[in-house]
């Protein structure tokens, strides 16, 4: 039984990373209906910028993390201004393809630096000894993941409920035309969504970096792992992203814990999120919290 709780806790920790990555993804989709295939690259760039600041410029870790988060936010902003702004009103497939192209461009930028083909890790800044409680162990990087997710969730909650900008973002997500007609700047909202997405992506990247070290391939892979999470939660729901992310994380750990023994070679945790994704699409196409589209002829 203690195993079960250990899997659960580990799953929540991993799921928090997915949730953190998914937050930005959902934010972009919610405001501008863009599925961002370059999200993994934003995650990787955030993580590498933080590393460069710590290891090369010898900035204190907290300052480096903060700077990297802001820098990636700025990158998100610039990407939106330069590339996506021109595509407003274009068919969905064009917009998706642009993000695929962007992913490759950002990859190329990383290959310009030693980060494209190397492995790195942050200098240890968290306590090395894990926390032990009733036979369950949690490491500090995992706590960091949970903490970051909770923090962003609170921030987002406040932002969307209370601040003018947040409310205008919700208005745009709800109905672009109507929002424009009451004077909301849709452009500003789009750019802001990308900037915030950059911020959350960088946070996710830094958490992954502390959990498992920095490798371009594995950082980018987080961008892919986000898809099942957001489908489960619903593409346009922020609480959905968190619930979806954590559910997928827990499912992966339970699969690895209880299913792998029945499958020769194991590795069910790699495929279970996608099986879930298909099943969700079958039975609850708009996810747990997603908005059902109502269409009229």
């Amino acid at each position, binding site marked *: 039984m203690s195993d079960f709780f250990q899997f659960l806790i580990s799953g929540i920790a991993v799921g928090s*990373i997915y949730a953190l990555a998914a937050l930005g993804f959902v934010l972009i989709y919610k405001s501008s209906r863009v599925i961002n295939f370059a999200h993994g690259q934003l995650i990787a760039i955030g993580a590498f910028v933080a590393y460069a600041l710590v290891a090369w410029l010898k900035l204190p870790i907290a300052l480096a993390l903060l700077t990297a988060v802001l820098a990636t936010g700025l990158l998100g902003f610039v990407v939106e201004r330069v590339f996506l702004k021109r595509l407003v009103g274009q068919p969905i497939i064009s917009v998706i393809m642009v993000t695929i192209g962007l992913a490759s461009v950002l990859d*190329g930028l990383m290959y310009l630096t030693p980060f494209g083909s190397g492995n*790195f890790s942050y200098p*240890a800044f968290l306590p090395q000894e894990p926390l032990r409680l009733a036979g369950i*162990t949690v490491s500090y990087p995992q706590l960091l993941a949970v903490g970051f997710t909770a923090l962003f969730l609170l921030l987002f909650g406040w932002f969307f409920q209370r601040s003018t900008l947040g409310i205008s973002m919700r208005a745009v997500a709800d109905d672009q035309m109507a929002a424009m007609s009451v004077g909301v700047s849709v452009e500003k909202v789009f750019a802001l969504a990308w900037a915030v997405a950059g911020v959350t992506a960088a946070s996710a990247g830094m958490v992954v970096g502390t959990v498992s*070290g920095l*490798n371009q391939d594995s950082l980018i892979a987080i961008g892919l792992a986000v898809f099942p999470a957001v489908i489960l939660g619903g593409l346009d729901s922020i609480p959905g992203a968190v619930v979806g992310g954590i559910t997928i994380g827990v499912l992966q*750990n339970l699969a690895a814990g209880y299913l792998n023994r029945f499958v020769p070679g194991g590795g069910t945790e790699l495929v279970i999120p996608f099986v879930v994704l298909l099943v969700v699409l079958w039975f609850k196409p708009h996810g747990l919290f997603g908005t059902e589209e109502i269409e009229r002829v």
Partner: protein
Amino acid sequence: MKRSMLLIGLTLLGLAQAQKTVSLVHSGAITGPTSDVGGPYAAAIEDYCKYANEQKLIPGYTLNCIVRDDQYQNPNAQRILEEALDRAKPAVYLGYATGAMLALKSLIQEVKLPAIPASAHIGLIDPPDNTYIFLPTSSYSEQVVALLEHIAREKKGAKVALVVHPSAFGRAPVEDARKAAAQLGLSIVDVQENGGSLDNTALLRNLEQKGAEYIVHQNVAGPVANILKDAKRLGLDKKIKQLGAIYTGGNDLIRLAGDAAEGYLWASSYYTLEEDTPGMRLHRELAAKNNRGTLGQSHNYTAGLLAAAIAVEAMKRAAQRFGRIDNVTFYDALVGMNGPNAFNPGFVVKTANSPEIDFTKSEQTGGEGLRVLEVKGGKFVPITQPFTSALFRKVHYGK
């Protein structure tokens, strides 16, 4: 007028003495998946080529190195190879990925082009179509069997789990490992595939429940680093000892896993970066001269140098013995690289009874010696003398 005559004369003289050109071609993953291995590997080949031309290692010949990025995609690898066959007529192909090499086997056999891949998948030198493929060091299977022998020496009847990469590369040694374990009296309690999960609690708990005392990895550094970290978090690092084949270790693993790497055992044929052998001195010199940074600190850089060095040495011998270098003479020179003619560049450990690099027609692995290294104080330190796997040939070829 006089001057121009002189110039023409000099030009003609120059042409008469013109160096002949010989080509080698490499295609590998400089970008794309596995570029943390492919990057240093390709960089080393480039650097060694430059060095070979500067030092005129092949008398009378200029070496033309075609180093291309196939982005880990087979069609690119295939095109790069066939383009070279059409134009540069290379004497040797330095291949890379397991998948691409397996797919290219029959083509390589048909055009009789000697190939030295970065992948050490045993299927590459097993029939059919295996005549022209040569592995610079021992195969993954041999490394894993050697690790099992090491375990058997340490603890009789130990329980071992295999954790492998979910690809042909990872699965290659599983079958031989099972056979070897049976011979050694070890029991393989589980074989799990792992391509890099953010959390390996479940994996480790399951292996613990099955009583695994050792985990043998055939993987890349990333997933192994994660498993090591999680084992430390769960307090299993004392209980379960972890070891792995060539691509699991090296400075990459230490950089990724940090303290958690302490005590990890690694089977490697290569000398470490700190050791004082001619090969490693060259490694340090070339990496510094070409500003290779982190790429130059990788054992994959050593591996690239070794592949290029074998190629250049065989070309030199082909030129000396046959007066021309092409795929045929290269092959003859390469399979003659044994006995007193073995090649000792100082990249790979040698054992008491076998030289560093030797090939024959039927023995297609070069350096069979390997050591087990352990991470101590953030560095891989050899803990065994160089040895060859006593069992591998028996379990694999049944002799």
